[in-house]
């Protein structure tokens, strides 16, 4: 039902692509991160909440249709519906059905309810196409309450020495999640422009988010001591200079491994991820009841081999997904 082409995952029966990485006519989008939602396609279809996010990332003039979770739409007799993936606001798994055969494309997902995105729900299918960003058993997330308690403690420690706490988190998804869970720590967050823009689009579509202030060259130096500053991983160290004294913390699943954290030259790392960890991937795959699994971006060969050994036929598929996350973590 889906073939793996040079442009992306293609459903020939319905003549549409899912998260194509080259411009196509019809693109069904799992979520608004740039490795999944790319520029140049003629029509886009996504969950309602993703529409404004797609517009700020790909341009206001794109041709995009929003539908709700569980709502069905037909392309050439192929039934397409979106189901919560729990990754970020508006993120969806895409369910495709034709003649009783069901395929599900996971996009990116996590199992824990982050309090903002619609929580992940397993969808029964015959074939499941899953991500594997953290598909190694070393990745096992602590519950988010515990992680945020740790971040809160770190902020308190920084405040002991009148330092600002700079937290790096992806501008779409992680940043909102972090602010949501730390809102009791501050009256308002100071944020980088990329995060301010995302916030503006979300607030305009009716999301209630904690108060923020966009950091500009005019922001007085007196605003920084003891503050909580949220910036994307790409933010430059020279941009942070004016916050001194500050401590730098990174929120990313990659922070699980010490070496990874050390080479970022950060003061603290928090293994907070919007992707499924190893136990999460395994339980998600099992919950679909799928008889065949394709594994995309991440530790795909490892996860596919393990599934095969567990008696679930699985294959590795090469895609252009995951570049954003890997790129970010290395470049910043």
């Amino acid at each position, binding site marked *: 039902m889906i073939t793996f082409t040079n442009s992306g995952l293609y459903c020939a029966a319905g003549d549409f692509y899912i998260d194509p990485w080259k411009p196509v006519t019809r693109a069904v989008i799992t979520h608004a991160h740039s490795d999944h939602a790319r520029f140049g396609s003629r029509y886009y279809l996504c969950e309602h909440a993703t529409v404004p996010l797609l517009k700020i990332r790909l341009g206001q003039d794109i041709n995009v249709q929003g539908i709700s979770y569980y709502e069905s739409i037909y392309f050439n007799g192929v039934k397409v519906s979106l189901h919560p993936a729990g990754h970020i606001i508006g993120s969806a798994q895409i369910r495709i059905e034709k003649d009783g055969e069901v395929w599900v494309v996971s996009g990116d997902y996590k199992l824990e309810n982050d309090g903002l995105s619609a929580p992940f729900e397993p969808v029964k299918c015959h074939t499941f196409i899953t991500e594997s960003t953290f598909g190694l058993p*070393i990745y096992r997330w602590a519950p988010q309450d515990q992680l945020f308690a740790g971040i809160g403690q770190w902020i308190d420690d920084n405040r002991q020495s009148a330092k600002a706490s700079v937290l790096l988190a992806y501008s779409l998804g992680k940043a909102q999640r972090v602010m949501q869970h730390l809102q009791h720590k501050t009256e308002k967050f100071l944020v980088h422009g990329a995060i301010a823009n995302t916030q503006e689009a979300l607030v305009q579509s009716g999301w209630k988010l904690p108060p923020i202030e966009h950091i500009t060259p005019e922001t007085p130096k007196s605003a920084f001591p003891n503050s909580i500053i949220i910036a994307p991983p790409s933010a430059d160290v020279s941009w942070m200079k004016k916050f001194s004294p500050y401590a730098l913390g990174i929120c990313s699943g990659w922070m699980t491994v010490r070496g990874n954290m050390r080479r970022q030259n950060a003061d603290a790392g928090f293994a907070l991820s919007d992707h499924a960890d190893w136990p999460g991937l395994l339980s998600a795959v099992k919950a679909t009841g799928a008889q065949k699994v394709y594994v995309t971006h991440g530790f795909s060969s490892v996860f596919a081999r393990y599934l095969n050994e567990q008696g679930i036929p699985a294959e590795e598929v090469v895609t252009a997904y995951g570049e954003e996350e890997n790129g970010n973590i290395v470049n910043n």
Partner: protein
Amino acid sequence: MQQFAKLVQVISNSTKTNEKLSALSEYFATAPARDKTWVLALFTGRRPKRTVNTTQLKNWCIQETGLPEWLFDESYHTVGDLGETIALLLPPPTDRKAAPLHYWMEQLLQLDKADETTKEKFIKSAWSSLDESERFVFNKLITGGFRIGVSQKMMVNALAKTWDIPPATLSHMIIGNWDPREATIEDLLHLHTTGADASRPYPFYLAYPLETPPEELGPPEEWQAEWKWDGIRGQIIKREGQLFVWSRGEELITEKFPEYQPLATALPDGVVLDGEILTYANNTPLPFQTLQTRIGRKTITRKQLQEAPVAFLAYDLLEWEAADIRDYPLSRRRALLEALVQQVHQPMLQLSPVISFTEWPQLTALREEARAHVSEGVMLKKLSAPYQVGRKRGDWWKWKIDPFTVDAVMLYAQKGHGRRSNLYTDYTFAVRDGDNLVPFAKAYSGLTDKEIAEVDSWIKRHSLEKFGPVRTVEPVQVFEIAFEGIAASNRHKSGIALRFPRIARWRKDKPVSEINTLDDLKRLLEMHKG
């Protein structure tokens, strides 16, 4: 253990010397006395004897987690650290227990004579009582090696601050032979005043590389020049009728070099020599590869003694007639040294000769001949300077000759360790031999973090085959490889072995068709045969 795990975490995460220092000082001010001694021992490279090996750890972890071995290996290659991999894979602790660092250290040492079952039981129960960060340090204690960014200098400074003792004095107090099970830090500091350990060496004075023209050092007559030897820096100590040989890594290596034994009688008591341990025959040093056959061997065969005889090229005298003379100017120490070596008159004790020169351009020209002397370049030492402690700028400089370089293509890549975890940073390079590519060197260093990120991302997209942790890549990326020496080798497919190969730069401008050939390397080898 919690306190120690916290210390390790703070130190390894911090990039700021001041933060590390204050974490150490705080630890020394508050930790249990016996823990402190262990921390000092561990962070100054005194590894306790290994009582459990890495294969055992791996197997027990596999049993505890039920993971297949290949998946354990994949995890290890990504994390790049065995102790950390195990800490991450194990299920959460079921039986938390708080015990101090010295408890765990002593328990581990007691396992020395225990049977496998006892060891297994102990390690598994330790794992189930420690949390992730404690398990990590626990595993590191077993596998040895805390490379977490604490230098000897930093340890010395932290201790100096806590006990209010000048750093130079303190670094001498903690050097040498002591057992953390027996000595407390207070003992070590006290020992110094009563003077006890006959084997104790002095901290080495280390040179910085010279990066400016020598003319900037001032008048040439104020300087002494020597060849820079490519051996093992060492100290020979004769006290109380006994001979001790120390390496710069503060390892007591007396037994490894039986050639030096005649010095036990020939040298007068109360003498400490600084110099180079070198393989040496017919009044010339042999290439470093010959010394390598002597390192790391527990027993030395007669054949090795014949093929790679060792001498000591002395260049400084630190103790004379049982008095510390490091404060004397070099000119005076040198005069005493020359007289001593002549008087002792033993073939294995040689003077590192002084290169005579009157003008800097003259020395610059002589330096070009360094390789002919089996040397790496020139050392410059100020004649009026005392013998200092540690790496200090100003009085001693190393002025190395430029390395050899060849252009080569990347053939294989493997993920790195430590802060290079999950990044492809360890590369194998090849030169051309007709239509074939012949691997000839591995290199890990020389690229910036930014270049590493770029190369890593390229490798992840362009690997052809996977053999365990090794990826074969398209042979298109050309790098300039620098190295210090070249020797024939029958252990390598290329027939050559390089000394200290590293990446000089990434030649994005060069196509593979223009890389060097195996014949080029063979010519180089021919030209520089010892």
